[in-house]
């Protein structure tokens, strides 16, 4: 079942003309003829959960915004930076009007009159394509004052970031959009009450908003028939790492993970096996080859001790030293920590240092205990989840591959000792 990727590679889909030929903007007309509450009811009935990482029910998020005629904002989070994730990029590049249409419909349901797409600065081509599509949408009266005579008005600005992972965190994003360093804010207050410029703000991921036109078109109840009881609909999954056909695949939530890793992406190259896989970007605790038969949905991943996250599956094969994986992950979060909270700033730094001790043969098995306890002290102790995003995968790597870490420590110590003996000889 393809909803978002139905015509994804059609020539010219990024233009309004072709998008409209494929039924584009019909959902917007349909929604504008309804009451905003009725549009919101469809979104709630669909059961759509946020596609950015947290998996929060989209309709519920909209309903949290205060009612009444105060300035409300809608912000599309297009800062896609979770390592392994590249689905929003393909959507924005090939079908920018689908996102714009979704934003206008969602703004109507939420009563928001100003909207922004915060796109990561590295996505230059995609931002240019969005700007071009936005100009076309303006020309056709889909964005701007009194949209299609409905009385609903919406301004939309494509805002380019400048390279910072933390700006994908919703409150860091808001500070960045206000022209500041992208430091996360203390919650509460939540953005629904006090977000951009202190006003009520709805923040949704690209894929979430791009799904809105489909839901209006087929109806929330029919959309909810897809997927599982608690994970409705289809999902774009980015598969990368050691697979033969890396790329984005649209799947119905709840299919076996094996079908994605092996069936769609072709599995690791011949003769190799899956050692571990991140089911939801590099922030998710790793799973092993024994978990490949789990259904790929929000709850099954959570029950297995991990998370669906952004839907980014990173596959690591059996020839890769687990230490290399841990170091890559830890170094990334150290680089991206904004430095505001001590457990994250110090915890990411010390984790890298301890992993480097393991690498050079200076560590003892006790360092693994210390490292594991550092991860536990980060979890839940910071303003945002960046520190957790390192602590979860590192903790899981130590727990699941302890033997390999210990073997590495012994080998590296032996090698270091041998070198020391040689240099003294």
């Amino acid at each position, binding site marked *: 079942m*393809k909803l978002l*990727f*139905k*015509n*994804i*590679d*059609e020539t010219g889909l990024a233009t309004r003309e072709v998008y409209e030929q494929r039924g584009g903007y019909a959902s917007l007309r349909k929604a504008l003829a309804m009451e905003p509450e009725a549009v919101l009811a469809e979104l709630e009935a669909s059961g759509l959960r946020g596609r950015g990482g947290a998996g929060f029910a989209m309709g519920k998020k909209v309903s949290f915004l205060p009612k009444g005629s105060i300035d409300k904002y809608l912000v599309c989070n297009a800062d896609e*930076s*979770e*390592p*392994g*994730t*590249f689905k*929003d*990029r*393909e959507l924005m*590049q*090939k079908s920018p009007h689908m996102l714009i249409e979704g934003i206008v419909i969602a703004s109507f349901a939420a009563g928001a009159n100003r909207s922004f797409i915060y796109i*990561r*600065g*590295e*996505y*230059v*081509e995609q931002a240019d394509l969005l700007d071009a599509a936005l100009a076309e949408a303006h020309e056709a009266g889909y964005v701007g004052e009194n949209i299609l005579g409905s009385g609903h008005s919406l301004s939309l*600005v494509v*805002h*380019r*970031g*400048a*390279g*910072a992972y933390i700006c994908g965190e919703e409150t860091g994003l808001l500070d*960045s*959009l*206000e*022209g*500041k*360093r*992208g430091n996360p804010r203390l919650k509460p207050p939540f953005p629904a009450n006090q977000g951009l410029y202190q006003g009520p703000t709805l923040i949704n991921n690209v894929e979430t908003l791009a799904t809105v036109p489909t839901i209006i078109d087929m109806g929330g109840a029919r959309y909810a028939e897809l997927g599982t009881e608690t994970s409705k609909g289809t999902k774009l999954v*980015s598969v*990368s*790492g*050691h697979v033969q*056909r*890396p*790329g*984005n*695949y*649209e799947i119905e939530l709840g299919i076996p993970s094996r079908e994605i890793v092996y069936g*769609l992406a072709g599995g690791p190259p011949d003769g190799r096996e899956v050692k571990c896989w*991140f089911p939801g970007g*590099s922030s998710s605790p790793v799973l092993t080859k024994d978990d490949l038969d789990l259904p790929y949905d929000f709850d099954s991943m959570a029950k297995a001790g991990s998370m669906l996250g952004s839907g*980014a599956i*990173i596959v690591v094969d059996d020839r890769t030293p687990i230490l*290399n994986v841990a170091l*890559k*992950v830890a170094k*990334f979060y150290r*680089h*991206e920590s*904004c430095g505001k909270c001590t457990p994250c700033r110090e915890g990411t730094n010390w984790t890298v240092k301890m992993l480097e001790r393991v690498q050079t043969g200076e560590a003892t098995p006790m360092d693994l205990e210390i490292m594991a306890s550092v991860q536990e002290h980060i979890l839940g102790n910071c303003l945002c989840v960046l520190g957790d995003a390192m602590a979860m995968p590192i903790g899981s790597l130590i727990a699941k591959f302890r033997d390999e870490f210990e073997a590495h420590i012994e080998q590296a110590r032996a090698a270091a000792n041998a070198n020391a003996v040689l240099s003294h000889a």
Partner: protein
Amino acid sequence: MSVTEPVEVPAELRAEIERHMALYPDSRSAALPALEAAQRVHGWCSPEALEQVAAVMGVTPAYLESVASFYDMLETEPVGKHSVYVCTNISCSLRGADELFAAIKDAAGSDAEFNVRPFECLGACDIAPMASVDGVYVGPLSIDDVLQLLDDLRAGRPVLPEKQLSKRVCPDAEANA
């Protein structure tokens, strides 16, 4: 420069910054696009660039420096005019990105034209290992592509046209059905 001396801002840069400022309820939101525009003119967020943005936006250069230093794409030191960001994050490194980065760095040598940097996940793990070359995504790259990549850049040609992301078709067999 004394504080009373008016700062001269190139007319085009001023117009671009003012255009951005007008888009937001609070003009300070234009800080990132304004710094990006100034960096395009000056090559980096130099003290002069910061002075100019500050003069147009009505904020202090120190404020802008604190902002610029937060973001990887805003340069706080002089750099080569062609940026080559090589993704060295997890998915790319599993497919040889660290070796690729070393090869590009080595081939670019001390050529001041190039700003070759290892970069965090660029969101293109489907073409791993990859690089963003002056904002254009290319991959999957092999060590054999390195000289061609740098030659294309030097000659002002499109970089590795066959390997540009925009050419890539979604591998989902049932998409587009």
